[in-house]
């Protein structure tokens, strides 16, 4: 049985391109090789098994689970790079996505949560579900197309649009905790809420303000579903709303706050994500 092994320095990973028709014995042999590699190279955080557009036979789930469990116990991660949605669905349906993480792109590889160096970078695999969530929620619930701009790390010099209302939600998992906010100017919030409820509003009344929390709740729910399928184990949370001229949300973390800017029909708003590992 022939396979190709590639070191992916950026992702701290080794990728194995697997041929079609792999037997359980072949996979066990690759597992042994991968575990030996991990032992020799302590910096490696992920093993990626690339099956491309091939299918994954059910009988291979057992050796995969054994490998994934072994890696997880060492603080590493096993990912299956698969084009077919059916492969992802099978892993999730069997409840194995915590030990075998299905991905469609190497960009999805999340840094290991106990690594402070990698967790402080902008983690595409973690923030993408939130970006997708904003786009999806605004399209379905407000009938608005919105465009994301490039995410950046918040600093004292960040040029953030003044906000009048913000939804804030705590994010918590066994590995990390933090907070997420979505901040709107009055005009942007009124645009969204008018579209959502199908009537024009000219000011943010007490009745309307919880809409900021509800929009964030939907976005959080969308992202949480995707991230938990990758093994993040994020808990439930209830949003709150803060309101006032020039409101800012101070997220407390040594690892910084990621800002995700968006535009919808010319109006800007932004989301902030801040997490830190649990000790």
């Amino acid at each position: 049985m022939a396979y190709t092994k590639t070191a992916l320095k950026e992702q701290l990973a080794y990728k194995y391109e697997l041929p079609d028709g792999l037997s359980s014995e072949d996979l066990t042999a690759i597992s042994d090789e991968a575990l030996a590699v991990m032992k020799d190279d302590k910096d490696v955080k992920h093993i990626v098994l690339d099956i491309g557009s091939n299918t994954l036979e059910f009988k291979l789930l057992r050796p995969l689970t054994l490998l994934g469990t072994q890696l997880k116990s060492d603080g590493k991660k096993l990912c299956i790079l698969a084009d077919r949605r059916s492969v992802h669905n099978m892993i999730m349906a069997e409840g194995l996505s915590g030990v075998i993480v299905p991905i469609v792109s190497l960009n999805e590889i999340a840094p290991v949560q106990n690594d402070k160096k990698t967790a402080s970078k902008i983690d595409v695999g973690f923030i993408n579900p939130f970006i997708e969530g904003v786009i999806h929620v605004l399209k379905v619930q407000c009938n608005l197309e919105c465009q994301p701009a490039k995410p950046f790390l918040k600093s004292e010099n960040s040029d953030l649009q003044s906000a009048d209302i913000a939804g804030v939600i705590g994010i918590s998992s066994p590995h990390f905790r933090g907070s997420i906010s979505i901040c709107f100017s009055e005009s942007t919030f009124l645009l969204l809420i008018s579209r959502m409820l199908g009537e024009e509003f000219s000011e943010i009344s007490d009745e309307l303000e919880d809409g900021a929390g509800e929009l964030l709740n939907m976005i959080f729910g969308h992202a949480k579903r995707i991230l938990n399928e990758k093994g993040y184990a994020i808990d439930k949370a209830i949003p709150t709303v803060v309101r006032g001229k020039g409101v800012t949300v101070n997220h407390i973390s040594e690892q910084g706050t990621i800002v995700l800017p968006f535009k919808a029909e010319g109006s800007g708003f932004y989301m902030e994500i801040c997490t830190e590992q649990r000790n």
Partner: protein
Amino acid sequence: MFDANTRILVVDDMMTMRKLVVKALREIGFSDFIEASDGAKAWEALTNSEVPVGIIISDWNMPNSTGMDLLRRVRAESRYKDLPFILVTAESDAAQVTEAVKAGVTGYIVKPFTVDTLREKLESAHKRKLAA
């Protein structure tokens, strides 16, 4: 489909979500609504309603008394055992769906949702009621 005069109890701690659900229900053709902001107030509204409530549409995740608390309380009463009960939630993991099905939920809507999705869920709930 349910009769357009059916009284619907809409439960959510977020005023905007109650408005959103009521707006969608109006578009579908319903016109008789009562609202509550948590499970405990919904129980009060349900048991005190002069016109019998024909459908409950409740948020899951609410402070104090949740949608699941309300569902369990409703199903514990024999007079409400077939009352259509639809849960609305922003989360939809398998364990949560299983919990709701075990407790006797009629339907399940994941936010964000369209009017068509709500209509489909109500049609499905109506078929289940007829089959009960």
